[in-house]
């Protein structure tokens, strides 16, 4: 039987029209080309790199080490410290984002004059690049002339100017604030969209049943929004775990490694220590951690309620 005939039988068995298959393949080709060349190849190559001992300074003495780079990574205390900082940063940021975005979405869900102004203003943090976001907050946090110091001084909260970013106890929290500020708009919009899809009949029924504002929130809004919450949480968690720009602009991993998170660790390993192999290995560990985290969130939120 010819290849042609076998192909036709296979298509028929899946009830796909040959002309449809052809059209689909034609329409998909550009995307597949782009993704294979520019996304798949680097991913695979990157993994391959992680299996070797590669240094940019000695590219002619590259040796295969298998999982050696991974083992070395897991034994490295700096790595684990970075993991801890990343975890703290992620948890705090995601929590803050979810709380603020929910409050904002609840408000925007109401009809009131000036709402349009508000939702337009909301887009500004989202639109600006992280670089400018970092620069802006760096200026606000500045220990010599920053607005934060100035404001607190004027309000009488502090007696004199303090160090902010330079204070290792505050560094991660301040970076988190800059991150949260820029991520909140998108989260708000996503949550708002979910909220809007809740039929108003449910609220009316709850009112008739005697539920007050808080009860309506707990028994109507929250349950209906569970998938939306989950989506936003997973997305923001992924963004937080891999975030790089602010750590570069604000603190470069410092001071004294206070903000030396996983993404910074990978950068240092790859572009300052020039050890491509271990850098790639850590990157892959991060990727796996991202997978695991998303899965955990799905399971966690899937079981409740």
């Amino acid at each position, binding site marked *: 039987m010819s290849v042609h005939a076998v192909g036709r039988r296979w298509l028929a068995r899946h009830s796909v029209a040959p002309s449809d298959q052809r059209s689909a393949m034609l329409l*998909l080709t550009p995307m*597949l080309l782009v993704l294979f060349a520019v996304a798949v190849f680097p991913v695979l190559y990157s993994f391959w790199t992680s299996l070797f001992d590669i240094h940019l300074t000695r590219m002619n003495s590259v040796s295969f080490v298998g999982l050696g780079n991974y083992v070395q990574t897991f034994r490295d205390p700096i790595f684990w410290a970075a993991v801890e900082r990343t975890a703290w940063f992620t948890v705090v940021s995601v929590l803050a984002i979810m709380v603020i975005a929910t409050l904002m979405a609840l408000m925007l869900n109401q009809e009131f004059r000036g709402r349009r102004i508000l939702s337009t203003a909301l*887009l500004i943090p989202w639109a600006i690049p992280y670089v400018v976001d970092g620069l802006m907050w760096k200026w606000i946090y500045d220990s010599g002339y920053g607005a934060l110091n100035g404001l607190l001084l004027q309000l009488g909260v502090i007696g004199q100017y303090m160090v902010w970013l330079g204070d290792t106890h505050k560094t991660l929290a301040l970076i988190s604030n800059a991150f949260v500020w820029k991520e909140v708009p998108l989260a708000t919009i996503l949550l708002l969209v979910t909220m809007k899809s809740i039929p108003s009949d449910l609220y009316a029924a709850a009112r008739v049943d005697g539920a007050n504002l808080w009860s309506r929130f707990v028994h109507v809004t929250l349950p209906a929004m569970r998938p939306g919450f989950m989506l936003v949480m997973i997305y923001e968690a992924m963004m937080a775990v891999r975030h790089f720009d602010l750590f570069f602009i604000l603190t470069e991993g410092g001071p004294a490694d206070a903000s030396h998170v996983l993404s910074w660790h990978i950068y240092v390993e790859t572009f300052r220590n020039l050890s491509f192999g271990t850098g790639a290995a850590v990157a892959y560990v991060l990727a796996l951690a991202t997978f695991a985290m998303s899965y955990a969130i799905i399971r966690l939120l899937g079981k409740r309620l």
Partner: protein
Amino acid sequence: MSSSVVKRVALLAGSIVMLLYVLAPVAWLLSSSLQREADITAIPPHWIPHPPTLSSFKAIVAASSGTASDDGNAAFVPSTAQYLLPALRNSLVVAAAVVLLNLLVSVPAAYAMAKIRYIGRDLSVYFMLATRVIPDIALVVPFFLFVRKLGLLDSVGALIITYLAITVPFSVFMLLSYFESLPDELDKAARVDGCSRIQALLKVFLPLAVPSLVAVIMFTFLTSWNEFLFALMFTQTAASQTVPIIVASFTSDFTTSFSFINAAGVVAIVPPVIIAVVFERYIVSGLTAGAVKG
């Protein structure tokens, strides 16, 4: 009734708080860019420009044309300042190219995934989404080596290709859910009326997908404009450096005046903010499948 008054007051208070939270930092950025250095380094700083001055912005323009600026602020202008306007041009070129290529690649793919039943459909959707799960950091090294081998290092071409790969999955995803919300029967009617699949896409679905297309253009433009990591890796000189890179270089230069940095920041955010504000309502419809009547 008092409860509705309470509600109104609460909403008003809430909106003020929200507005402050969202806008205050940016307002301070703007204000700082319009003041002299001495004013903003006062303790506490002068909140409102009094008088406002455009000297920092003038310094930016002057730096790009290579002439020394008038004010005597020259000592406080970073050495890379002259590259800011060229960087604007680079960012624009890259963003425009990525948007165009993105549409050419994403629209057909999204239509096929949404409306055609073909073997490998589920696989192609998962594959496309999976390419974005790996953090960008992990892709930098191979990308770097790849780009270097192609001799494209320090060219806008490298950025265009990279950003294309980054933005296509999300664009396809948005267009896909929008196309799926359009009735299947429209597609059937078009085919019975004599359209091949591709003609149905061009003549029927594309005109109907305008809100989603606008959203895709917007997201793609913003992503390209704001991207930092890959631009950092792939660009070395003003020939290809984009705005985020130049602005970042200012912050690491300790002699820079703050008003200048803030002015640069304002310049950097003008295009994205304008685009976001103008196309505001397409963001929501782009993120969700639109409803089509009729």
